């Protein structure tokens, strides 16, 4: 923040009004507000209503599938309970709601919907991918100047929109069946198995698709900033038959690699900047 100011009348007033809008104590602030024919609390209530309604709408916009699964009226109730305990700490509304999936997963009225937290997580990742920049990509030929002995130390920078999620529930099918505009109402077998999904921008849209176990682990490890050696090892532990060379070619072909660095070899002090966008 710029220059924090000394405690002041304005600071005190804004704290008091803020507390009232957030639904906390308003007794301390009503005396500072003119009634002008109404109870000052009624005037504060106009702001409180807008705060709750606008944040509820923001959550609905970010979690449309959860809204449809839960039913809009119940979603509005769940959202209002969430807003009480998680007021926004971000200016941009599209950044509000990161904790909503965990909230839903632990929300007692949703206890019978054991998959709802993961469906919400998927929607949060889709929203995040939609609000991510896209960087210029590099190709595998950009690694040509490297010594092959350095390959294990490669750490790739991947597209900021890339996200990965694993769920024990078929959240991809739940999403498709309940996305806005979908008229499908078939039954989904929750015992049919989970999924491993990759979410990313493709052109000007966000798409997600299912990945095989080895590829999911490889991309997840690379996305966490692990070096190539570690990521490949993890993928092979998951699927000993996984074709890692093919997997790396697909990583480049999908336009996901935007740069790389070389992690220090055992005994070296620092990473070597090699190429970044």
């Amino acid at each position, binding site marked *: 923040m710029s220059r924090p100011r000394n405690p002041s009348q304005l600071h005190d007033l804004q*704290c008091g009004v803020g507390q009232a809008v957030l639904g906390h104590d308003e007794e301390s602030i009503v005396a500072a507000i*003119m009634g002008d024919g*109404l109870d000052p609390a009624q005037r504060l209530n*106009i702001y409180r209503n*807008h705060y709750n309604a606008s944040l509820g709408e923001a959550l609905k916009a970010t979690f449309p599938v959860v809204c449809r699964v839960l039913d809009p009226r119940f979603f509005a109730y769940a959202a209002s309970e969430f807003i009480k305990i998680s007021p926004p700490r971000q200016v941009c509304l599209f950044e509000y709601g990161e904790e909503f999936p965990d909230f839903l997963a632990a929300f007692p009225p949703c206890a019978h919907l054991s998959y709802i937290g993961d469906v919400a997580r998927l929607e949060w990742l889709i929203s995040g991918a939609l609000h*991510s920049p896209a960087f210029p990509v590099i190709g595998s030929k950009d690694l040509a100047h490297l010594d092959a002995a350095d390959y294990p130390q490669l750490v790739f920078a991947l597209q900021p929109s890339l996200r990965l999620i694993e769920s024990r529930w078929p959240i991809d099918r739940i999403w498709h069946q309940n996305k806005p505009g979908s008229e499908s109402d078939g039954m989904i077998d929750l015992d049919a198995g989970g999924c491993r999904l990759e979410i990313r921008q493709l052109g000007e849209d966000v798409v997600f698709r299912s990945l095989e176990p080895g590829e999911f682990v490889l991309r997840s490890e690379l996305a966490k900033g692990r070096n190539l050696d570690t990521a490949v090892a993890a993928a092979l532990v998951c699927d000993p038959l996984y074709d890692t060379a093919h997997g790396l070619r697909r990583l480049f072909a999908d336009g996901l690699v935007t740069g790389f660095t070389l992690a220090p070899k055992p005994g070296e002090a620092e990473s070597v900047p090699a190429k970044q966008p």
Partner: protein
Amino acid sequence: MTERPSAVPSAMQPMPVKAGIGLRAPHMAEVSARQPAVGWLEVHAENYMGFGPAFRALERLRGDYPLSLHGVGLSLGAAGGIDDGHLARLKRLADSLDPFLVSEHLAWCDTGGVYLNDLMPLPCTEESLDVMAGHVDIVQSRLGRCILVENPSAYLRYRHSPIPEAEFLAALAARTGCGLLCDVNNIYVSSRNLDFDPLAYLAALPPAAIGEIHLAGHAANVVGDHTILIDDHGSAVSNEVWALQGDALRRFGRRPTLVEWDSQLPALDILLAEAAKADAVCATLCPENDDVQAA
């Protein structure tokens, strides 16, 4: 006090003659495809701060329309200071899109790191003027340009608010060199909610500082025995606001004028028709592109 940019308001690009529209996401594709003959576009800056596909679509439109960035989250009136990270993102956006106007509000929304997602009213005191002026200086210095500050709609007033709001804005413009965004609907809404004379408010605004005019619709809610007007941007501009727009034009002359519509967003053609109506009103009252100032 930081060194302030000299242009008032930021007029490095020619001012569009025709009225503009507030561009909202559901209309983005249609505007891109049809390229309607509207004078300019204004967007809420915060909706593009992810720098993703929406930002790239706006970048493409930028070649076809003058663009205005309208911020709603800087919290210029917050006693606790303004968010440097948010200001950095606004600067990146402004540097990327080269808007002909950048505007914010006489308001606050940040209370101890929690954002109230609203334009909260500021008491008009000397302390508030110091806070606002300090923050406008910081923003203008960081952006390297003047900004416009908009009068908000209000549903309450504070017991201690000794400076009339219009005079407060005039003093802010004089101290910082910022321009003013005169939201005619907000003046009307606040005048009804807080019982003041909207014409006196207009008369107290300095015409030379007015860099933009906003028009929008509002709703009426009954609270107790009172009707409270809500600035919901959810309907056509009311007859009363069109009349007040006439008074504003007679006083300020032709200014870049924008029609906003946010909730219950209509078909694009309805919004364009509102902009055309704003053009017709302006053509009648300001046939010459000269400033007309009241005595």
